C-alpha cells in the first residue's frame, strides 16, 4: 500500500517554513530527506507523520536524541507498556525478545529509568519501540547524531538489518549526505522549506542539479581514502 500526503505546509509567526509539499512512500522505500539546518526537513518529517497518522496509518517516529523520546521519571518497562497500549496491543503482545536481539539491546534492566542506560542503548530501545507495531513507515530524525561514531555506526547497521526483511518503509532525515548515501536509495533534497530535488541517491551524488544538492554532494565527506 502506498502512503501519500498532500499539501503539507507549516506557517509560523506569519512566515512559511514549509511550502505546500506532497510526499508518496511505497512499501520498502528507503528515502533520505536531506538539507542544511533550517531547510525545513524536520518540519516536513513531523507534518508527514502527523498527517499519515490522521489517515489511520501506523507510522512511527524516532527523534534525534533519546532525551526527546523518553520521560526520565518512568522506567523503560513503563515506556514499552505505554507504547503497546497506544497501539491497542495486550501487555506483552509485541515481540520484545526478537526486537531486542535484532537491535542488540542486551543487559539493560527494564525496571530502571532511561538515564541508567547508555545513550546508544536508549536510542536502540526507542527504535525498538518504533518498530513494535510493524509500522508502514518509520521516520527517523537524525537518529544517530547524538551518539558516538562507533555506537552510531552500529545502530545504523542494526536498523538496516531490522528493516531488511520487513515491508516497513523508512525516511531518514539528516544533514549528512555521506550518511544518507550509505543507507537510502532515494533522496529528497530540501532548501528553504521546499523539496528542490528528488531523485535516486546515485543521481543526486553524481549529477546534482539544485544548488543545495550540489553543496551537500560536494561536502558529503571529509576525504576519499586511498585504501
Amino acid at each position, binding site marked *: 500500500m502506498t502512503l501519500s500526503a498532500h499539501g503539507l505546509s507549516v506557517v509560523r509567526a506569519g512566515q512559511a517554513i514549509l511550502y505546500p509539499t506532497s510526499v508518496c512512500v511505497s512499501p520498502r522505500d528507503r528515502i533520505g530527506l536531506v538539507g542544511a539546518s533550517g531547510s525545513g526537513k524536520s518540519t516536513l518529517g513531523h507534518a508527514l507523520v*502527523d498527517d499519515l497518522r490522521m489517515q489511520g496509518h501506523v507510522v512511527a517516529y524516532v527523534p534525534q536524541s533519546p532525551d*526527546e523520546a523518553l520521560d*526520565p*521519571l518512568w522506567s523503560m518497562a513503563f515506556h514499552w507498556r505505554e*507504547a503497546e497500549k497506544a497501539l491497542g496491543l495486550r501487555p506483552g503482545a509485541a515481540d520484545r525478545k526478537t526486537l531486542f536481539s535484532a537491535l542488540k539491546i542486551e543487559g539493560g534492566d527494564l525496571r530502571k529509568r532511561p538515564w541508567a542506560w547508555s545513550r546508544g542503548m536508549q536510542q536502540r530501545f*526507542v527504535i525498538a519501540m518504533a518498530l513494535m507495531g510493524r509500522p508502514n513507515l518509520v521516520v527517523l530524525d537524525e537518529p544517530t547524531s547524538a551518539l558516538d561514531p562507533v555506537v552510531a555506526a552500529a545502530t545504523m547497521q542494526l536498523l538496516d538489518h531490522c528493516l531488511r526483511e520487513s515491508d516497513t518503509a523508512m525516511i531518514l532525515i539528516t544533514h549528512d549526505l555521506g550518511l544518507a548515501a550509505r543507507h537510502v536509495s532515494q533522496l529528497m533534497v530540501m532548501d528553504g522549506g521546499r523539496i528542490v530535488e528528488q531523485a535516486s541517491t546515485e543521481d543526486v551524488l553524481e549529477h546534482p542539479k539544485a544548488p543545495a544538492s550540489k553543496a551537500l554532494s560536494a561536502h558529503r565527506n571529509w576525504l576519499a581514502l586511498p585504501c
Partner: protein
Amino acid sequence: MISSVFDLVLRALIVLAGTALATFALLWHAPGDPALSIALARFDTLVTDEVIEMVREEAGLNIGFWPAFRAWIGPLLWFDFGNSSVTGREVLPDLLVAVSYTFPLAFAGLAFGVAVALLLAFVATKRPGGWMDRVAVGVASLGAAIPAYWLGLLLILLFAVHLAWLPAMGARTPAHAILPALTLGLGVAASLTRIIRSSILEARAQPFLPAIRRRGVPSSAIGRDHVAPHAAVPVITLVGLEMAFLLEGAVMVEIIFGRPGLGTFLVTAIEARDFPQVQAVVVLTALLFVTINLVIDVIYRVIDPRIGGQDA
C-alpha cells in the same frame, strides 16, 4: 532509598538540636531583665527588688547559661515543656489547646487554597495567553495584593453582617472556622496559582512530549503520566512551606476573628517574657518545619530518584 531517608532523618535531628540551642541562647541573651518582666506580669505594681530576686530564683534564671539549658532540654526530650513563669501552669496543656484551634483551621485553609489554586491554574492553562488565562492570573494577582486583615473584614461585612449566614467572632462551633479558613485559603490560593500555572506550562514544554504524542499516547494519559509528575515537584515544595506557615498560627486572622490559637499564644508569651511558653512554640515550629521538609524530600525521591543521586 532507605539509607538516603536515614540520612535525611539524621540531618533533621541535627537541625532540631541546633534550633533548640539557638532559641535558648537568643532568649537568654535578649536585652532587658527577664526577671523584671515576669515579675511585672505577675505582680504588676507590687514589684520590689526582693520580688524580682524571688522570681529570678523560681524561674531558674540565676544558675548560668549551660545549667539552665540542660535543665530545660532534658525534660523537653520527653515533651515536658515545664511550667509557665507567669501563671505557673504547665505549658503543654495550654499549648495543646492552642494547637487544637490552629491546626484544623490551617488544614481547612490549606485545602481550600490548594483547591482554588488548582482550579484557577487548570482554567488558566487551558489556553495560555487566552482571556481565561488573563482573568485567572489577574484574580491571583489581586488576591496576592489584598492583605489578610482587609480581606477578613470584607468577608465579615458580607457574610456575617449583610447576609448574616455565618458567625464572625469566636471559635465555639465549626461554623466559626469558615470565615477565617476562607481568609487564609484565599491568600494561599493567590500565591499558589501562579506557581502551579507556570509549573504546568513548563512541564508541557518538555522535549520528549511531541515524540510520545506521535507514539499515539492519548493526551489524557500524557497529562496524567508525563505532565503532572513533572509539574508537581516545585508545587509540592511551596504547598509544604505554606502548610508550615499556616500551622505556626496566623496572628492577624486570629485577632480579627477573635479566635484563640498559636499566634495569639506566642504573642502573649513574648509580651510577658514567659520563657517556657515561647520556647515551647519555637520548638513546635521547628519540629513542624523539619518534619514537613523531611516529608517533601522523601516525596521528591519517590517522584524523581535523580534527586539525591539515587540509582534508577
